[in-house]
């Protein structure tokens, strides 16, 4: 009688261990380059959730596969035992699902949100304005002379805030390498920020790109710009090479 249970528990632990090995011990769950502090928060939340989740499918699969192999029958002639519920199992099930749910709400849920907010509230070193227009992004550096570019260039190690707007339809400002995303909404200014930690460029890695992630019409998929993270001296040199905005006469 209890043999069934023992085998299922054994199967469960084997599958559980196998799953954790795939996540931690192999390259299968590799992430794209994480080039900002914000990316590290997202990736560690992702990794934690994956590791935590494994016993759940391992258990369900164990019961499912074992039952199909062990309890199969060839027709409707025999009935199973008339068990309507097993109270202790039901209580146990509700307890662990509730416990796990409450746990992930707090960690990495609430803690992750607070960490991202904490990062966003740090002093801003550089402000970049991004306006979504079908099908391009117009990037402006208002504190550095107000020039506009078609490539996002930011210095490594500096806290960059992006002010995002749109004046036609919805767009979304997404930089995969930074794991940041915020919609561009007509009529309002949204903000998102990142502190790059690695230098890199679109030419080396396609994750360094500013991609529109909200369907905006015909050429939505062409709405992307290269992103380049450079050292501080390189950034200063790049800024110096930009044309200054023609002085406006009042």
């Amino acid at each position: 009688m209890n043999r069934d249970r023992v085998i299922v528990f054994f199967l469960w632990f084997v599958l559980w261990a196998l799953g954790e090995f795939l996540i931690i011990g192999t390259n299968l769950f590799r992430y794209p380059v994480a080039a900002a502090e914000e990316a590290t928060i997202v990736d560690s939340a992702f990794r934690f959730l994956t590791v935590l989740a494994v016993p759940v499918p391992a258990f369900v699969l164990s019961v499912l596969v074992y039952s199909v192999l062990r309890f199969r029958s060839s027709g409707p002639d025999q009935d199973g035992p008339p068990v309507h519920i097993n109270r202790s199992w039901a209580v146990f099930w509700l307890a662990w699902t509730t416990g796990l749910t409450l746990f992930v709400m707090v960690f990495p849920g609430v803690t992750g949100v607070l960490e991202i907010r904490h990062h966003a509230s740090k002093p801003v070193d550089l402000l970049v304005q991004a306006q979504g227009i079908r099908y391009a992004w117009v990037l402006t550096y208002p504190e550095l002379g107000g020039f506009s570019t078609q490539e996002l260039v930011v210095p490594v190690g500096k806290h960059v805030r992006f002010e995002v707007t749109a004046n036609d339809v919805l767009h979304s400002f997404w930089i995969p390498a930074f794991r940041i995303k915020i919609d561009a909404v007509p009529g309002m200014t949204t903000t998102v920020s990142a502190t790059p930690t690695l230098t890199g460029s679109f030419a080396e890695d396609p994750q360094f790109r500013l991609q529109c992630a909200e369907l905006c019409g015909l050429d939505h998929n062409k709405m992307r710009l290269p992103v380049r993270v450079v050292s501080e001296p390189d950034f200063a040199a790049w800024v110096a090479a930009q044309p200054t905005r023609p002085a406006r006469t009042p």
Partner: protein
Amino acid sequence: MSTLAAFRWIGRGLLFALIGLAVGAAVALALTGLTGRPPAEPVIALGYTGALLGWLLGVGLWDVWAREWLGLSTRSLGAEGWQRYFRFNTDHKVVGVQYLVTFVVILLLAGLLAVLLRIELMSPGQELLQPRDFNTTMSLHGIMMVAVAVATIIGGFANFALPLLIGAEDVAFPRVNAFSYWIIPPVAVLLLLTPFFGGFDTGWTGYPPLSVGPVPQGTLLFLLAFLTFGLSSILGGMNFLVTIAKLRAPGMTWGRLPIFVWSVFAAAIISLTATQFVAAGLLMVILDRVVGTAFFDAARGGDALLFEHVFWFYSHPAVYIMILPAFGIELEILSHFSRKPLFGYKLVVGSFFAIVALSFLVWAHHLYTSGMQDFLHIPFMITTELISIPTGVVFLAALGTIWRGRLWLTTPMLFVLAVVFNFLIGGLTGIFLADVPTDIHLQDTYFVVAHFHYTIVGGEVFAIFAGIYYWFPKITGRMYNENLGKLHFWWMFLLYNATFLPMFWTGVWGMNRRVADYTPNLATLNQVISILSFGLAASFLVFVYNMVVSWARGAAAAASPWRARTLEWQTSSPPPLENFPAPPQVVGYPYDYGTPGAVHAIVPVAGGSADAGTKETSHG
């Protein structure tokens, strides 16, 4: 000649639709002439409204229903032979089959559109489809599949089987029921016409300002189709709530309702209430386009973000209109084919209602990156993650039911076992999207695409196929080919998982949704996915062949080929008009497998009476 006569009512519907179209268009032209606004969109909107009314009256609403409003006597259009499926028919079984066949056809068409998308996605860059065609194909695939997911179970199976399951003659409002089916063909026509009106490139979500314009008039056709479909959904929800509340057979207490009936009851609550919100939202977009209001135009005091809230206030509960009845089919079939009582019946019913309540409180998890106020993130993350608790109960019930049962692995049983597996992946990956930090990266990527295809295809569409095979003998009076059924199952199950599982990776690696072009690092994985998806598409040929041939020439089905205990199996296959010779007397629980002598219902038969579920079974 009788073949031609069968389409007489549809022909009259088309004729009346043309008249309605002309009248509506003329009114629109007169009004725009007076106000000096461009006539194109008002002509489409009012012309369509006229055509819809004309179509409904012509196809049979006039004879079966509307004559009564003028004090005239109504008349039936005839309920005999195959011709009844092409008429305004109020028999719930006819309406159920109409829904099922219509939506299986739409499912296959929308599947073909997905094949087109996957051909385009075989390699980076835009090759096969022009940008407009890609967006239209993608948007059509989306809205058609959403319609399939919303209507196939409630419109098809609930219509066919639910009155039988509760021992009723029909649904509470048979004419409303026929009405809610016959407004579907105009929806299909509008959607299929969109490519000829410049297509529509908004996706099924239709977010303004993009959906307000300036974009092609195909968008207006899509909005009108969606709104019409919503009306059907609202009426269907109302009908099933009243049917379950008022038409249960004597003795069919709430505690004896089969679990599928409970699941439809829960979904119908959402269908009746939440759908009205998206209908209002769509109407506001239509008004912005057609009469120049500015609900969503920021430059004139409107708010673009407002629509996202209204839309998801319906569209998140709507996924539970899809999945709750799928859970119902899953648990129903698991109990009958495990020959064991459903594990934790009351707990499952309670969890269905917990899901309904929570489903209204989670919509803004679609809006974490939308620019809404930051302080809303944590509350919506909490409510969203709470849903895993009642959903977990469904898994407990599934596993508790099969444990130590006598599993008869027929095609429907295989499909519901696959539902358990697929929905497990769908549910777990949902946590990554409910969690704010991970969702910031994953929002609008293929991770989301993979997740909702796991829940809705892996969960619901697999349950739909389970339901088709399970009720096929009852619907057609014939058996399907079991070997072909199993071939279809394994082919579909393996290739479905092989196709959609890698999409989680493409999403994490930076592939965003709704694009024809992507960065070269994703080329290999996309090519593999595309090739696998063609194999998945081919599996449906086996299904179609099996269905067509079995319906025409399959072996005659017994009244109860599965020896299941619920009431639909205690009448002939197919059941007669009004289902039972006299109302069944329900005396017990439907899932008392393994209890010798337990009876679910006493069903009158011609010339005597039979006890349902009393077949002597050895218990070993």
